[in-house]
């Protein structure tokens, strides 16, 4: 079903940001009716490539053709008008506007020159129902979870007849069912002859959905070809340039005494009576569908949100409600789910971000201890094999995955007794993923108690000693490592038989 001529072809593209050479002589061809997987490590240059196709960045060199015609996109508008729809890696929404207006901004249906709000809401409502998501088109986007925001992004891209659909890690925040729905829509688009570019760090998805692969490393093109010619190992070797250690290096540990004890934790309208314990050296997985309220539980435990009921104890000593400082001194750490808003101070240096959580300790007398600051930062960033130019660069210049590593470094630096990680490997490549998992496993082995919230089921299954499952703000069940499978977890999470072929 592959057409002879590519709809979109990019040849010998290069792009540099100051000293950083993000892309070097990369070529890519997208054919109608075909899904094309773009795979590469964090920082390989995938998003940069996308942004060039989107008209966000201008390539320093190279040539771009649509239907064989040479084109240059100066603005995103031009790319859009050429029929290219984009789902960016980071949600780019208007928090103050309604879902409907976010989807159709600039293209609102008109009646007599004026915006026809009913038509607008109806149109978007239809798209959302297509995706099987009952989001209210008239509600403001502010307050939507990452996942729901990602859904709106997808709706935006689907809202006009795109001939090329480019998706930069659309599934990073989604669970099986939503992913499955997205793919169903993608298939229908392909059937209509559209070309699809799909970026993901979940190789299973790539193999399941894509007909053609392109692999990048360090901003350079490595290889392209039909899916059939690739195996997981070949892909990984191409991406990482070496063989990756085992992805889930879980070490067997005998749990010690209780470190974290949560009793009847309640936050009105968000979650109710959540109780569980975590022991020394244990990794407890917190599974559930997006929106189940896992992040909220984490936030309440860490004191970001005040709790309406219940109590939290660390090593037997209770922690006051709504005090992050108290939670930290008690030895709790939280790696939040939204790295840009909650995890990082974007235009502060890597070094300073990595040491932000231990700022008070970094003093000699009353003054800053710069040496200690640099030491800590470099220790942890190198432990996590951070790919960065200099430690004094602002984190904003790092790729998504590398930014996530900085957040991890920040919390590992506090040497916590309990570490809550919310989507710790969202948008993190296989290589880095393995390192993150290894680090967590090692720390657990050294006696750290870990709570792992993740929408990536294999990750939870692979790493957790016990798995707690949440549904609609309630703890609905607990599974031991042995009898936890995708099916059993999904069953609890949904309260029904898991949808067929759910990946995640």
């Amino acid at each position, binding site marked *: 079903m592959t057409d002879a001529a590519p709809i979109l072809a990019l040849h010998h593209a290069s792009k540099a940001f100051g000293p950083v050479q993000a892309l070097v002589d990369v070529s890519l061809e997208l054919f109608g009716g075909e899904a094309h997987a773009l795979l590469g490590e964090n920082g390989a240059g995938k998003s940069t490539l996308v942004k060039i196709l989107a008209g966000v960045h201008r390539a320093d060199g190279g040539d771009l053709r649509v239907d064989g015609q040479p084109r240059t996109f100066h603005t995103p508008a031009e790319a859009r008008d050429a029929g290219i729809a984009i789902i960016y890696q980071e949600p780019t929404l208007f928090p103050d506007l309604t879902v409907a207006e976010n989807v159709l901004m600039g293209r609102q249906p008109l009646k007599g020159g004026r915006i026809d709000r009913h038509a607008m809401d109806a149109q978007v409502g239809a798209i959302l129902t297509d995706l099987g998501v009952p989001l209210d088109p008239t509600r403001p986007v502010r307050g939507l979870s990452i996942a729901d925001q990602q859904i709106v992004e997808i709706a935006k891209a689907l809202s006009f007849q795109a001939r090329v659909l480019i998706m930069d890690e659309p599934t990073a925040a989604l669970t099986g069912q939503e992913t499955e729905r997205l793919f169903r829509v993608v298939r229908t688009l392909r059937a209509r002859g559209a070309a699809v570019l799909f970026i993901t760090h979940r190789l299973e998805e790539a193999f399941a959905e894509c007909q053609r692969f392109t692999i990048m490393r360090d901003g350079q093109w490595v290889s392209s070809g039909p899916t059939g010619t690739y195996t997981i190992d070949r892909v990984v070797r191409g991406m990482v340039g070496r063989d990756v250690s085992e992805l889930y290096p879980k070490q067997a540990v005998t749990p010690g005494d209780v470190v974290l004890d949560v009793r009847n934790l309640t936050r009105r309208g968000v979650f109710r009576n959540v109780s569980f314990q975590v022991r020394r050296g244990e990794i407890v997985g917190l599974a559930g569908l997006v929106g189940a309220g896992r992040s909220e539980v984490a936030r309440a435990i860490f004191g970001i949100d005040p709790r309406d009921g219940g109590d939290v104890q660390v090593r037997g000593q209770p922690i006051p409600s709504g005090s*992050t400082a108290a939670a930290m001194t008690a030895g709790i750490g939280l790696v939040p789910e939204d790295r840009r808003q909650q995890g990082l*101070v*974007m235009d502060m240096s890597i070094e300073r971000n990595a040491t932000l959580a231990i700022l008070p300790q970094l003093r000699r007398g009353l003054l*800053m201890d710069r040496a200690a600051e640099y030491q800590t930062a470099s220790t942890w960033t190198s432990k996590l094999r951070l790919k960065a130019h200099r430690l004094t660069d602002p984190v904003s210049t790092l790729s998504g995955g590398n930014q996530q590593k900085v957040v991890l470094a920040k919390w590992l630096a506090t040497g916590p007794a309990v570490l809550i990680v919310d989507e710790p490997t969202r948008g993190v490549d296989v290589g880095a993923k393995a390192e993150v998992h290894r680090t967590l496993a090692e720390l657990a082995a050294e006696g750290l108690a870990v709570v792992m919230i993740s929408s990536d089921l294999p990750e939870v299954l692979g790493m957790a000693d016990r798995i707690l499952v949440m549904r609609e703000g309630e703890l609905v069940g607990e599974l031991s490592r042995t009898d936890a499978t995708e099916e059993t977890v999904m069953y609890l999470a949904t309260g029904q038989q898991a949808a067929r072929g759910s990946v995640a």
Partner: protein
Amino acid sequence: MSVPNRPKRSLLGWEATILALVALALLLGSTLSDAFLTAANLSNLSSNLVEIALIALTMTLIVIAAEIDLSVASIAGMCSALLGVLWAAHVPMPLAIVLTLGLGTLAGFFNGWLVTRLGLPSLAVTIGTLALYRGLAYALLGDRAVADFPPFWTNLGFGLVPGTQIPIPIVAFVLLAALTAVVLHATPFGRSLYAIGSNEVAARFAGLRVERTKLLLFTLSGLMSAFAAVVYTFRFSSARADNANGLELSVIAAVLLGGVSIFGGRGSVIGVIAAVFLIGIIQNALTLADVPNEILTIVTGLLLILSVLGPNLSAQLKAAYGRRGRAAKGGAQ
């Protein structure tokens, strides 16, 4: 929140620039009038800046933490009025001063409370208290003016360090400036201000005590304004409800000119001090050269704009040039 149009400029670069500008201004002054580079003139010049300079110190901290305090001048006016009322009521001066500083601290705390507890935007809050505190100043002192302050105290505001041409208040300023610089640039607390300023949410998730910090900043700002009010009152040996009226804009202008980003997260004490004196020197020099007042106003405005526009444009030009360079390379391959 990632803010658009955040001016990207290397601070060091900017401080160098503004210090150079100060030197330039001194040169200009001495060429414009031989009366300029006299100890007496410089001494007058600086003593006229002292209130602005003092308040600018705390304003710097607040703006770096991405807040703003427009009520400083009104707090000063209110405190000056109180000092007058107390003195007129024969309260012993030391006590009167303590009470005045207390009132300022209270006023600042109230600002902070409204901002941190009610979560109101500081711009809105301090526009409100700007009216409130100035109003209270009139409520306190009405149309009266208290002037008969004892020479010992007025001399503290007006006089010079014996045997020098250094105004006494300037000494206080230098000490406070040094203190502020150390706190901001060399302590974890100072570091945390930058973090809070550029991403409050992330700062909170990192366990920094955002509310407490901001509350402290506004309270300090109030205390500093009160101190400035005491200096002002003694320097002019006159307590009136309209004292220090409109000072807030001069302070903010100086802070911004000093390279502090209005969006928070950027700025330094040196830059701000340099800016305060840059404005003062230029105005003094031009006045000595009988440049009419309206020109002074225009110059102040232009300085402010150019301080940001200059670095931005040069950066944009560099970027544009670089792109063309690379594009050429790219095309070649």
